[in-house]
């Protein structure tokens, strides 16, 4: 029996706007085993960040359940949720705006410890901060510097150290390396991998960059306009994609290898609106395999092979 640390059931997040209801996350379900990484990929507006934040209740889900270690956290009261947050943390995308510019590294990393009253002694907190800095590869001498004095890579390490301060079991990484240069990205990805091994962490890794997610995830979920369209173990997804959107997405990645022959699938048109979407496949208007079935109702997520799910009428065959 798999040790599922997280189970997301029919998660929905809708935003009411003047034009109607914006379906940002629409009926998303998946499970994650302890110690593994689930990559959530998709392009702008697909709902991946909103999913990550809704799971942590940084945005309140409209409906659905988020079962963390057997407990539905959407039902927790504020005080209980606050305590739960020690176990579920987040690393943000922008290493510039996610750090308070008026706090030193010591204050930023120490804040969760202070606020949660894990320790109250100033020196003990500082020692813990130094430990965390060492874990993420930040030099000791930087402890009293301000974010603006450091580059993006170091700032992101501060974000990671802060997320680790509470010794969480589960971390949502929301595009943690997108704002960084290629060689710094690689440093941070390697760090996250090492930390996962060392501390037994479970990650959700949200990104639009498919080469990165391939490298860093055990399983990958592909999102399109708020819906989960395909989910499979990483290698399986890359080798045997089923959903036409997944195929187009994979074929679109430019590969830095001259021996690679790409067969590009170019999508026609533009993404449709997430506001009051009709009950049909949301990808139908851009799909080259579209048929009548696709317009009749939203396709369900079906398990085709063990662990490989797809929401597409093609998935019947």
């Amino acid at each position: 029996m798999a040790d599922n640390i997280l189970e997301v059931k029919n998660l929905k997040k809708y935003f009411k706007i003047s034009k109607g209801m914006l379906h940002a996350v629409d009926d998303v379900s998946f499970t994650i085993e302890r110690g593994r990484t689930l990559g959530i990929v998709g392009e702008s507006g697909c709902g991946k960040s909103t999913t990550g934040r809704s799971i942590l209740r940084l945005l309140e889900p409209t409906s659905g359940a988020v079962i963390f270690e057997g407990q539905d956290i959407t039902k927790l009261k504020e005080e209980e949720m606050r305590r739960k947050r020690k176990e579920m943390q987040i690393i943000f995308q922008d290493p510039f705006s996610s750090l308070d510019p008026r706090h030193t590294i010591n204050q930023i990393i120490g804040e969760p410890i202070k606020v949660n009253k894990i320790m109250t002694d100033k020196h003990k907190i500082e020692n813990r901060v130094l430990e965390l800095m060492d874990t993420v590869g930040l030099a000791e001498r930087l402890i009293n510097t301000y974010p603006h004095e450091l580059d993006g890579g170091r700032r992101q390490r501060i974000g990671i150290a802060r997320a680790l301060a509470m010794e969480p079991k589960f971390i949502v990484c929301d595009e943690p390396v997108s704002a960084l240069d290629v060689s710094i990205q690689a440093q941070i990805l390697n760090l996250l991998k090492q930390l996962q091994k060392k501390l037994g962490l479970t990650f959700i890794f949200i990104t639009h960059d498919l080469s990165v997610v391939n490298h860093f995830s055990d399983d990958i979920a592909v999102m399109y306009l708020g819906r989960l369209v395909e989910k499979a173990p990483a290698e399986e997804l890359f080798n045997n994609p089923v959903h036409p959107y997944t195929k187009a997405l994979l074929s679109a990645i430019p590969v830095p290898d001259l021996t690679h022959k790409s067969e590009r699938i170019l999508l026609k048109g533009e993404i449709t609106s997430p506001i009051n979407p009709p009950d049909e496949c949301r990808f139908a208007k851009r799909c080259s395999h579209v048929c009548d079935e696709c317009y009749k109702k939203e396709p369900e997520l079906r398990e085709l092979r063990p662990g490989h799910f797809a929401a597409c009428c093609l998935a019947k065959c």
Partner: protein
Amino acid sequence: MRNEKKDLILDVENLSVRFETEDGVVYATNGVSIKLEKKKTLGLVGETGAGKTTTAKALMRLVPEPPGVIECDKIVIDGMDIMKMRPKDLESVRGKEISMIFQDPMTALNPVFSVGEQIAESIEIHEKRSKKDAFAKAIEMLEMVGIPGSRAHEYPHQFSGGMKQRVVIAIALACNPKLLVADEPTTALDVTIQAQVLELMKQLKQKYDTSMILITHDLGIVAEVCDDVMVMYAGRIVEQGTLEEVFNNTKHPYTEGLFGSIPNINDRKSELQPIPGLMPDPTDLPKGCSFAPRCPYVRQSCKEEQPEHCHMGGNHYVACSAYKDPNFHIRRRVTVEAE
């Protein structure tokens, strides 16, 4: 043996750009030379701070002088000596002979003018056509980039990122420039839209015989679109050659480092090999080779002297003194299947 005189669209020799500021002198570009043949596409590759954008802007003298100081032996575009031209003459060259797509095209469009008007503006100025004629041509250009001409009266905010980018391309190509400089034209776009835009650029390039300089940090895009490659580090070109030479016969340790940092779709098992450390501060460049502090093959002489430009055959040059030793080679090897 007769020396073949190549038909060059761009001939730059020893270009250096520095910025004299209160906090010190920023050496952004140092001794860059480029020879670009007509109809070819050059990929200018490097990370943030390498000096790629400064180099590109210097070509059209778009660097503010002061605090910028441009020094070079020559910059010749399609036979025209840019450094000798008066500002007024330069204005007629920009947008007509040489056009630029700036970084973050999302903010390159004027929000209070329709997209049609913005494309037409370029045509009006350079081709001296009436407003009506220019607008008609603008509609043609929109269709060319895959946007219905009926949308010519709409405003930038009514378009998605990918479409705005296509409008920017339409403006850049409206007067059929001989040389297009595209600075990270697809960085801000989703990968499927990026694919559409790159495909469009390839088609238009062929149709108009445009030469192109494509600035990017994405080696995947370079592999797809470029004929020649120049790798920049701390304001200098560290390696240059044809696409095959630089990709399949990589020489410079920094270029090797770049390839090692990128996750390769085809090889997910291997650990990423990031380059330790950071690019040096351009106000405080190290004495010898700028890459020495991070180079896995560094020798004492590298820290003291500027690296030599070594010819590796064909069009392939590398700025690395280690190659003075004919037995030296880096670890990266690409096996190319025999035809």
